[in-house]
């Protein structure tokens, strides 16, 4: 075991990385096609590209998780073979993966200590680990309790654990794959403070994000990939949002949607004093009352873990309300199952799309039919009518611009953006009266985000009452008519879009009630 316990300190200051001519094929795709990529000491270098452009693949090659089919990696000028994460760690490379690599049933300290030698030989000794975690927390502003179980942590905290894991292993170069996708603005700010501190110490940093303002904010240089190929590397100082978007997508992208005024109708979704428990049994929603009217988008802002997800699930019928009532289009659905709610005109875009929204190994067609497979014309007398189903799905795929090789392609082999579009197609095809959209563009590239926003606004124009749950304030400000801020299971305040600004929302999200200045 090469790694040792804390206190050894960094072995130097950062790494110079050069990846040359990297090629990686997967069944069906050329994920990296002769990509060149450099990172210098003390630099924050962003990788940018649409979903499926090959960013994560390049990073996984760097970390020894994938073997490149061709190409070379040099560190400080020396060619290196990185054939395992162990080797990458030895070389001083750390990685924050797009999907967190944590063991939920273990404590923070156990997660950090995993794979390291212990001073007590074969026996676990977590006390020094906890101490060192606290030191690192202190030094980089990464607050986290070493004794907490990981499954109890918020997403932001989990991310801090990931960073601590890398720092603990003396990572000189740290790659962060979409670290901000799940963070609140405040958490993003905190993260950036940490990253800048690390860069200032000489660490080399690779950053991946779909949010252009973040990219422009944090990066020194930006490298753009498209369809696995290198488009170019630009200095952040010379870059603009529109220019980057064009490099990524290969065309002009409308970054701001026009929110036309819409006639607001009667209340479609009414929530009265709803209470619900979270997964851990604690009260997560504590007496929330909201009304969403036809033609209106009501956004719920808030730091994740403040009851938004539970509230959305209560409305969708996936979580039992322990108190209060939910009405859809005037009918009380508090005790109804998801199917009954759907029949009354509810649609739902779940936050965890691969868990709640789609069946990965089912085909695109089967996924598009997930709610309607058992009703005519798609099924008769218990038998599926494939001709009818295919006709319907073809239309949806065309209408919603889902890019898939065929209707028989498995859902999981689509890109994140296209999976989201397929779910959107299914949910919006019934022209719902009420739409609950949870984090509809999380992790989705700007092209697809643009498209999804347009569809949500279209739906608003058609009289749908939309409850939008998002941690992305830009998204909220771009779409919402009114904004409710949730904090610790309660609605702090509901503000009109016109009166909302990032500062005021941020304070509310932090639990500071409006003093009415």
């Amino acid at each position, binding site marked *: 075991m090469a790694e040792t316990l804390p206190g050894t300190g960094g072995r130097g200051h950062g790494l110079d990385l050069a990846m040359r001519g990297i090629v990686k094929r997967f069944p069906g795709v050329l994920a990296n096609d002769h990509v060149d990529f450099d990172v210098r000491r003390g630099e924050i270098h962003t990788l940018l590209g649409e979903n499926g452009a090959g960013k994560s693949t390049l990073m*996984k090659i760097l970390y020894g998780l994938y073997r490149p089919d061709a190409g070379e990696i040099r560190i400080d000028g020396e060619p290196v073979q990185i054939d395992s994460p162990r080797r990458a*760690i030895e070389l001083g490379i750390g990685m924050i993966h797009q999907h967190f690599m944590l063991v939920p049933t273990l404590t923070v300290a156990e997660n950090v*200590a995993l794979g390291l030698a212990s001073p007590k030989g074969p026996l676990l000794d977590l006390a020094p680990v906890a101490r060192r975690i606290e030191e690192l927390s202190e030094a980089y502003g990464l607050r986290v309790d070493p004794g907490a179980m990981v499954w109890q942590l918020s997403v932001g905290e989990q991310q801090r654990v990931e960073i601590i894991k890398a720092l603990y292993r003396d990572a000189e170069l740290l790659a962060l794959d979409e670290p901000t996708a799940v963070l609140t603005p405040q958490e993003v700010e905190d993260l950036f403070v940490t990253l800048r501190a690390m860069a200032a110490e000489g660490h080399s940093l690779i950053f991946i994000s779909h949010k252009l303002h973040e990219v422009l904010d944090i990066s020194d240089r930006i490298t753009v990939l498209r369809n696995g190929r290198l488009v170019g590397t630009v200095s952040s100082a010379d870059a603009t949002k529109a220019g980057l978007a064009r490099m990524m997508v290969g065309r002009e992208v409308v970054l701001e949607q026009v929110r036309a005024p819409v006639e607001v109708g009667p209340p479609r979704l009414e929530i009265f004093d709803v209470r619900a428990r979270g997964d851990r049994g604690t009260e997560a929603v504590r007496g929330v009352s909201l009304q969403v009217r036809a033609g209106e988008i009501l956004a719920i802002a808030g730091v994740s873990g403040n009851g938004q997800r539970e509230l959305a699930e209560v409305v969708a019928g996936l979580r039992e309300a322990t108190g209060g009532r939910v009405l859809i289009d005037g009918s009380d659905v508090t005790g109804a199952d998801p199917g009954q709610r759907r029949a009354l005109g509810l649609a739902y875009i779940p936050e965890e799309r691969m868990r709640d929204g789609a069946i990965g190994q089912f085909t695109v067609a089967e996924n598009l039919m997930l709610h309607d497979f058992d009703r005519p014309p798609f099924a008769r007398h218990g038998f599926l009518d494939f001709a009818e189903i295919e006709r319907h799905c073809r239309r949806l795929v065309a209408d919603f611009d889902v890019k898939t090789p065929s209707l028989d392609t498995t859902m999981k082999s689509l890109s994140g953006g296209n999976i989201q579009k397929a779910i959107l197609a299914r949910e919006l095809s019934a022209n719902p009266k009420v739409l609950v959209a949870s984090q509809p563009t999380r992790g989705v590239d700007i092209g697809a985000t643009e498209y999804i926003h347009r569809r949500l606004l279209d739906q608003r124009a058609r009289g749908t009452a939309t409850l939008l749950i998002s941690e992305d304030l830009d998204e909220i400000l771009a779409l919402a008519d009114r904004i409710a801020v949730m904090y610790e299971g309660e609605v702090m305040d509901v503000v009109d879009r016109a009166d909302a600004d990032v500062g005021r929302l941020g304070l509310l999200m932090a639990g500071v009630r409006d003093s009415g200045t």
Partner: protein
Amino acid sequence: MGEFFTSAVLVSTVASGLRLSTSYLFAAVGETFGQRSGVLNLGVDGIMLLGAFGAYYTVLNGGGLWLGMVVAITVGLVMGLAMAFTSVTLQAEQGISGIGFYLFGLGLSDLLFQKLVGTPLPIRGFPELRIPFLADLPVVGEMLFSHSIVVYAAFLLVPVAAFVLNRTTLGLKIRSVGENPEAADTLGVSVAGVRYLTVMTGSALAGLGGAALATELGIFQQNLTAGQGFIAVALVYFGAWRPVGVMAGSLLYGLVASVVLQLKTLGIIPRSASELAAMLPAVLTILALVVAVQRERQPAALTKPYERGA
């Protein structure tokens, strides 16, 4: 019913329950290691049979009991290596390859027995080892402290296993690999290495369980285990993947079986109902789980092969 509650009967019933639990316990604690790391080994019964035969044959040929145990462990390790190779390296469907190993062990142990031994000649097992002082205590002395060394070893294994799983760096790796192998992999933990280790350890313990059975009974016979290995696997689920829980399950199973035997011997259970009584351990095991309302989650990666980047 009164005669059942005489202390002599109680003592022998409990002592018998402990002995009946012993071979389950070895096998089930071993299986716990494998399952905690994400590998289901349904071939335990076959491995037990081969281990039992290995130990029996060694002792019969004058190799001595300790060598017999070593042989059983070795047999278990070899079978474990094969099992790990199919489940970890070849990523075979574990529930089914396990049944294959079971049938293989069932057939091969019988074949070897018939070819090498033939007539089931008796061997002498470990002598009763009375623990000083404790064995002289009234009632509990006879119940708990007058057994052969294999019985103590099986029960000692429980805290050892719990310690390894919860207090060592290896245990941390095992738990991580069973919950989130990808995360362990990204920290340089060899997922395959850990799984080979646990499956081989588990199989070695299964072999030892078989050896315990053969030496305690002093005999080998076709299908000596009579399905104990399958029950051991079930007891891992019963024990919610914790050594102590597994021990509770083994004890429950063994004690119910011995109580039933005792009641039949005393004529309290009529002979016409003897099959119904034989159902009791199985039924009670299920009921205990239903009533105990423990919704322990299984290791998230259980039965799922891991391949980097898949």
